[in-house]
């Protein structure tokens, strides 16, 4: 564990000295925070129409009935709450997707800078190395997500209809932010690091790592169109699948990380 901490601390120091690499993640996070406010508050104010009058949003009312935390909300607040909740997966995934570039570059970067051989000459194990590389990208990404969630909540509390912020403490919302988000992030970043140790180009790792995001992005779209209802049960099932996937990815990552090939074939 000390070696993981040592390498994670090195990764953080590297980010501290080069904060620009997290700029895309930061920009994406800002956009994902602003976007729901634009849809839920700015557009209705601009057009002078209430969201609760829209026939398209009646589906929202039906879905909200399953979340008791919103009992007693007036219709406008309820629709706003629905919109804010629908955008939560985007808020959770955007920083992860953006931090994928950090994870994808992590092993390839060491190869290119010729810093991997001295590192492998220490007693560090492959598990420790990969864990540290994943944590080095995961912790800032999850930290950014949580910071975004806090700002998001504060924004809803201040700007939205009274009571709409209660949606953020609904089990479904909390499950997405604190369970699904970190687990999906872990899987995506593990895959990126895994691929990073096998390919010679960071872009390949980034693109393959993004495959994890695709099904989750599909969920987001499904939710927005009303095709999928991400209930507590579904969150539990997806979380379970992600736990299994993460364990499998770590095992695969260790098996694929071929120290010898990295040292002898990669120039």
């Amino acid at each position, binding site marked *: 564990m000390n070696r993981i901490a*040592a390498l994670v601390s090195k990764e953080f120091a*590297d980010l501290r*000295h080069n904060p620009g690499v997290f700029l895309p993640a930061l920009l994406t996070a800002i956009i994902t925070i602003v976007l729901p406010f634009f849809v839920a508050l700015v557009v209705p104010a601009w057009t002078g129409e209430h969201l609760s009058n829209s026939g398209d949003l009646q589906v929202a009312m039906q879905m909200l009935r399953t979340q008791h935390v919103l009992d007693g909300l007036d219709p406008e607040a309820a629709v706003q709450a629905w919109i804010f909740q629908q955008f939560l997966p985007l808020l959770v995934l955007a920083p992860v997707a953006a931090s994928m570039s950090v994870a994808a570059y992590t092993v390839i970067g060491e190869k290119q800078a010729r810093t991997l051989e*001295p590192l492998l*000459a220490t007693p560090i*194990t492959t598990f420790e190395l990969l864990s540290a590389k994943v944590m080095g990208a995961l912790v800032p990404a999850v930290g950014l997500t949580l910071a975004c969630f806090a700002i998001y909540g504060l924004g809803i509390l201040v700007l939205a209809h009274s009571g709409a912020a209660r949606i953020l403490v609904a089990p479904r919302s909390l499950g997405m932010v604190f369970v699904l988000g970190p687990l999906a992030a872990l899987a995506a970043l593990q895959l990126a690091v895994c691929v990073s140790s096998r390919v010679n180009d960071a872009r390949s790792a980034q693109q393959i790592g993004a495959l994890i995001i695709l099904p989750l992005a599909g969920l987001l779209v499904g939710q927005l169109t009303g095709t999928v209802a991400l209930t507590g049960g579904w969150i539990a099932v997806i979380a379970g699948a992600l736990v299994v996937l993460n364990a499998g990815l770590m095992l695969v990552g260790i098996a694929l990380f071929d120290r010898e090939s990295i040292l002898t074939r990669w120039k």
Partner: protein
Amino acid sequence: MLAAAHLTRRFGQRVAVEDVTFEIERGEIFALLGPNGAGKTTTLRLLAGLIEPSAGEVLLGGHRVAQGNAARLRARVGFLTESPGLWDRLTVRENLLTYARLHGLPLPGPVVERSLATFNIGDRADEPAALLSKGLKQRVALARTLLHNPDIVLLDEPTSGLDPESAHDVRDLILGLRDDNRAVVLSTHNLDEVDRVATRVAVLRQRLLALDTPRSLRERLFGHRLRVVLTGHAGAFIPVLRAGGHPDVVADDNTLSIGTRDAMRDTPDVVRLLVEQGAAVVSVLPEEHSLEDVYLRLVREGAPA
């Protein structure tokens, strides 16, 4: 202490190292010489436990190093790779601190501060590694290599690309390692460096072509020779020397080169014969072939000496 026993490593069909056997003791600087692609770096990686041999074994204190205990070997080995391999954006101190922690040192901070002082890099400790000169980077890399106080130090071309002053500094540090009673394995192309620091030399071209002290290698390949400088033309004295029992004599202008079997016995005899014949002797010295001569002969001939 550290031994290679019939070490062989293949990469697919290509044989990088074949049947290499040697042993290295504490207080020894063991130089690996060989042309590019001769298997020097592969041998160092095998010794460091970074790659596994296809056949043969690496022995540490008599115990075989295998995949299961390679981490234990790595804890005892300091490996200076061909490239300094510093994290450019991190400061010198951060680079060293990370490695001190990776080696599980109980007090990494004080160890790093001592190392910065020992290697005289304290004044650059808070600068990013990217800003250092090549010589300073190599010094930091050497400091990193020795942070965990390894008793076996593997150095892959430590002075490659350094200016003469930096190379001299690094050589002094290498001699310091020997004085600290560590076992040092040095891979290099710099024959002069080997001559200055190595206690033993292994010439490698996939197989081991020769293994001995630099002096013994010279003697085995070129024998003992005396170089006698006279004031006048030397050729006139060849018949006298041959008649006196020294058949291997060549002359070049005012210099004689005489093959000897026993320098202690033959040198006074050669001088006596020359002086008796009226030669004015300016100097008598053992004729030294350079290590380059030794190396080139071994590599060109390719057969084990």
